[in-house]
C-alpha cells in the first residue's frame, strides 16, 4: 500500500469506478480516512447528479418541427419517362458498341496470354470478395446505429 495521497484526478477515477485504478491506490483510499471521505464525496455528487430533474421543453417540439418540414413531392410521370428513356438509350448505345466492335473485343480476348487473364480474373474475384465483406459490415453497422442504442 502506498502512503502517498492520490491526486485529484486519481480520486475522481476511483469515485467513477475502480476498474482503472491500481491496487495500491485502492488500498490507500480504503484505509486513509481523509482520502476515503474525499472519494465518498465525489461518489455522492455523482449519484446526486443522476437524480436531477430531466430538462423538458415546455412546448411540443415534434409538432413545431413537423409543421415546418417540406411536404414530399410525388414523382411525376415526366420524371419517370426521363428515367426510362435514359435506361433504354444507355442499353441501346452499349448494344451497338458491342455489335460494331465485337471483332476487336474477340481479338482483345484471344490476344492476351493465359497468365494475364488469370491475373485479371484473380484481381476481379478478390475485389468482389472485399466489396462483399465491406457491404455486409457496413449494413450491420448501420442497423446497429439505427437502433438508437
Amino acid at each position: 500500500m502506498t502512503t502517498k495521497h492520490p491526486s485529484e484526478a486519481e480520486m475522481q477515477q476511483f469515485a467513477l469506478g475502480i476498474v482503472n485504478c491500481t491496487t495500491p491506490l485502492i488500498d490507500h483510499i480504503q484505509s486513509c480516512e481523509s482520502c476515503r471521505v474525499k472519494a465518498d464525496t465525489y461518489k455522492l455528487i455523482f449519484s446526486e447528479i443522476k437524480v436531477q430533474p430531466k430538462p423538458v421543453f415546455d412546448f411540443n417540439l415534434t409538432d413545431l418541427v413537423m409543421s415546418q418540414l417540406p411536404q414530399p413531392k410525388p414523382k411525376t410521370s415526366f420524371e419517370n419517362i426521363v428515367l426510362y428513356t435514359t435506361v433504354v438509350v444507355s442499353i441501346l448505345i452499349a448494344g451497338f458498341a458491342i455489335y460494331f466492335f465485337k471483332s476487336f473485343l474477340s481479338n482483345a480476348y484471344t490476344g492476351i496470354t493465359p497468365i494475364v487473364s488469370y491475373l485479371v480474373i484473380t484481381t476481379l474475384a478478390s475485389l468482389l470478395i472485399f466489396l462483399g465483406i465491406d457491404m455486409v459490415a457496413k449494413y450491420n453497422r448501420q442497423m446497429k446505429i439505427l437502433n438508437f442504442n
Partner: protein
Amino acid sequence: MVNRILKGDTQLFATVIKNTEGLVAQITFRLLSNSEDRKDIAQDIYLKAYRNLPGFKFQSKLSTWIGQIAFNTCFNFLEKKKVILPDNKLPENENSNSALELAANKLIDLSNNEAEDILFRSELAEIVQSAVEFLPPLYKTLINLFHYEDISYEEIAEITGMPIGTVKNYLFRARKSLRDNILVHYKQEEL
C-alpha cells in the same frame, strides 16, 4: 429509417425527434438560459438535421450526429451573441478540506438515522442541482452528458468536436469545480 425519410416518408422524422429530444434538451438547457432562444434553437436544430440528413454517413449514431448539430447550433448562437463559454476559475477555498470532511462525515453520521438521512439527501440534491447550475455552460453540458445521460468520452468528443483528451480534462475540471462549489456552500451553511 433514414433511407425511408430520404425517400419522402417525412412522418418518420417525428420518431427521430422523439428519440433524440432528451439529448437536445439536455444540450440546449445547459448552454442557453433564455427559454425563447431555446425554442428557436431547438427547431433550428431539427430543421438543420432534416436538411442535412442526406449527408449522414452512418459513421456515428444518429443521436450523436443530432447532438453534434445541437451543440454546434447553440455554440454558433452564443458566438453570434458574443457570449463566451467561460473557462471559469472558481475562488480557491482555503478550508476546503475541513468543509469537505464536515459534509462527508455528516453523511456517514446520518447513515444510521433514516429520517435525517432522507432530509439530508433531499437538501444535498438541491445543493448539487444549484451547484451544477452555477457551473459555466460548457462544464454544465459536459457534466450532464457524462453523468446524467451516460454518454461516453468518445461520443461527447464527437458531439462537441473536441479531442477526447480535452473532454477528459474539462470534465475533470468541471467535477472539481462542482465539488468546490458544494464545499463553499457547506462552509457558508456552517458559518
